[in-house]
């Protein structure tokens, strides 16, 4: 049996850029105001009036299979779990910020209150209680999905099996664990 590979699958065309995911994450994970573990990128407004387009790309830590943040950590605080999630051991982190620089997705921030690096944990504390990550649970458009893509019966695996998708900066060899589903090409 294949090992677990937790991943996010995002249907970008369902995202309405409301940012409920961002607030939900901040409250759930006690993220200091002014920082965020996740985001919604607005692409556009592109074109010339009235032929314009705009789309949205939500994201957070990509939970890479080959995470550059892990390689640069001098103390081994950043590590990859067997279930595919990349974590920061806050008791080990010395706050050197190398990983913040190394992340091509800008997914990490330095928490001044705790003195260590922080980022998305995929709400692993919720996931193993049978709950969805906070961002997924509240997604108004139903754009965000999370699950084990190695389980063919999971919602995420089914979405990937039946749709075109892309991952961000695939060329960097990070093997990110966030898949963006699109229909008819990346819009706007």
């Amino acid at each position: 049996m294949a090992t677990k590979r937790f991943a996010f699958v995002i249907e970008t065309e369902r995202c309405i850029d409301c940012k409920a995911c961002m607030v939900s994450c901040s409250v759930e994970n006690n993220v200091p105001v002014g920082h965020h573990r996740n985001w919604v990128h607005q692409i556009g407004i592109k074109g010339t009036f009235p032929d314009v387009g705009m789309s949205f790309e939500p994201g957070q830590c990509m939970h890479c299979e080959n995470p550059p943040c892990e390689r640069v950590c001098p103390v081994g605080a950043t590590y990859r779990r067997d279930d595919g999630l990349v974590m920061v051991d806050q008791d080990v982190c010395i706050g050197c910020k190398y990983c913040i620089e190394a992340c091509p997705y800008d997914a990490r921030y330095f928490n001044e209150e705790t003195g260590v690096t922080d980022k998305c944990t995929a709400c692993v504390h919720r996931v193993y209680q049978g709950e969805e990550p906070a961002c997924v649970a509240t997604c108004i458009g139903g754009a965000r999905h999370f699950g084990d893509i190695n389980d063919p019966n999971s919602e995420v695996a089914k979405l990937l099996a039946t749709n075109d998708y892309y991952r961000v900066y695939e060329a960097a060899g990070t093997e990110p664990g966030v898949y963006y589903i699109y229909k008819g090409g990346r819009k706007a």
Partner: protein
Amino acid sequence: MSKDERDDIVQYSMSRRKFLGLSAAGAAGASLTGLGFDKLQAYAAKHGDVAKTTIPDGEVHTLCEMCVWRCGVIAKVRDGKITKLEGNPDHPHSRGKLCPRGQAGLGMTYDPDRVKTPLIRVGKRGEGKFRKVTWEEALDYTAARMNELKEKYGAESMIFSTTHNLIQQQFENLLRAYGSPNYGTQRGLCFNAMITANSLTWGLDEPGRDYTDTDYVIYTGRNLMEAISNSETQDLVEALAKGAKVVVLDPRFTKTAARATEWVPIKPGNDLAFYLAMLHEIIKNDWYDHEFVEEYTHGFDQLAEEVRQYTPEWAEQRCDVPAENIRRIAREFSVAAPRAFAHPNWRTSNFENSFQTERAIAALNAICGCWSQPGSLQPAAGEGEGVELGGIPQPPYPRVRALRLDGVPWQHPVVPLKLGIFQKNRDAILTGKPYQAHGWFIYRQNPLSSISDRRKTLEAFSKLDFIVTIDIIMNDTAYYSDVILPEATYLERYDPLMVMEDSVFIRQPVIKPLFDSKPGLWIFQEIGKRLGLEKYFQYDGEEDYITQQLKPLDVTLEELKNKGYFTVVKEHTGEHSEELHFGTKTGKVELSSTVLEQLGMKGVPHWQEPMTPSENQFYLLTGKVATHTQFATQNNEYLHDLFPENPLWINTKEAEKRGIKNGDDIYVESEIGKVKTKAYVTEGIRPDSVFMVAGFGHVSKGLRTAFNEGVSDSDLHISYTDPVSGSQALSQTFVKVYKA
């Protein structure tokens, strides 16, 4: 907050939240020292009356109040503190999800800027100097002033206003028992045109919408993906995913326009022309639903006669939508019908002719038979209907003889009494006609920010002898009030029950009220007692009030509290009854309104020329973002962080002409005011229009996050009111824009 010599004096100053060792995210991208949420809670716990032991860890089912949609919420509690809010999957408005405002609800309850004790003003109005007082003193003083005004000038000299909410019944109870006819609600500022037009046409306030089976939807200025109505926004996303065609008429490229199938960048104020031409096309080409028209409508011949002149070419000249597109959309809509609807919207283009626009939209739906069919408009029962509740004993109210200051119905016979014309209360204070108002009782409302032309509202305030405001934070109106009574937030109190379809939902406290705040039900009763009106407030605390409401139902308060809702088992009569009924005078859909005819007006929707800007002026458009609710959430740390200020959208070419670059400081100037803000230069807006999000530019120094962030549209907006429906016409304000 700096302290006066005396301990009980509060002097609000504009210093930021440094006392917490924190600074808010600056508008210019200053360093973002975080405001940790647990710090807020710790602060509240230290300074407030937090129930340290009585609240068990767990989950409480309640109702959101970050906007008026009232989603079901599951609040998680740990160590006496609320740690997270989730959407209740069992509530039809949330379906397990909350929007960003709902998610940020803790930012309101744990806002360090909450009014912590009752306050009585000691400085000049607007000086921000108050004395901390006990509830006893604040309530005694309030009641004494209200009784004094009543004796001196009559009960009608007090205006009572609130934003419609679950406790409406007790608000109105106080108003009626006191004996004033002067009732103000936000509705005149929002959707009088929509409600009035729909009730004259269909005989109900606002038709429901079936998104499940719809193939075609047209929105007119409704921006569901930024002005979120949680469940309906979810419905729209699902409809789009299933392949429904969605057409958005909006001068601005909103997020809804971006997600829609087709964006029609229509000229402001002229959507009426678009719909009159749609009616013209569909009737001329015989694409309408003969059976529905013959059986269920009144006045089709007059309508057909009226719209004969409104060709798509005629409309193109006005609304700036190519005639061929109007023809195509008319064809597509009538082919999709009845699995289609033109949405009733909120305000359409927000002009004095919006009432006619709404009537034309209703007529379009009617002649295409888009009523009570899968995917069409629905004869939905409104919120509050569906389950009969018990109530507290209701003695008769004193008879009120005075006219209403807002002119309803004596000057505006068509405007429903429950809507009124809010902004006209303000104007009546200034004119002293038909008589002089002397006091204003303001509850969960912020008229200083919400009514157009803030200077006028301030001037009106200065003419009043007494203003009392009940609020949670020191909003702008509270800041200019004489007495401020701090209410508990929606996570700390009960409210009367919410009825929806076959179910009742409860708002209940998750934690005890922080600081010295009190629930609305308690406040109303205490004021009532002191006014000698205790017989109108016969309940023994919040729980007893709810218990009395539950009397006819087979459920106890405890059971209701545990689950959050109770569904009444009803005998359904099976299928929708074949017969359609309409609550109009003719019992039919009135394409020609008998009410309007009777008043000597034209009964059918017809062209009404909108005002147009002169050379070098823009239409000033305003609207919402998903992260804020009107004027109420700018001080919420989470939401301020995501959207701290409101730059002005301006079209690239128009900006270039004026030498304005993205991010530049600019002046926006209308006939009544001028504000300095930043430019957001974009291709996503018509060249003749500019846009800003409403609700910013707070003047209260008691709002240490929101104070002076962004600008207030109310400093620019001229007050225009449609005399028929009483709707304000915000987009009729035109502005000049130039580099600062």
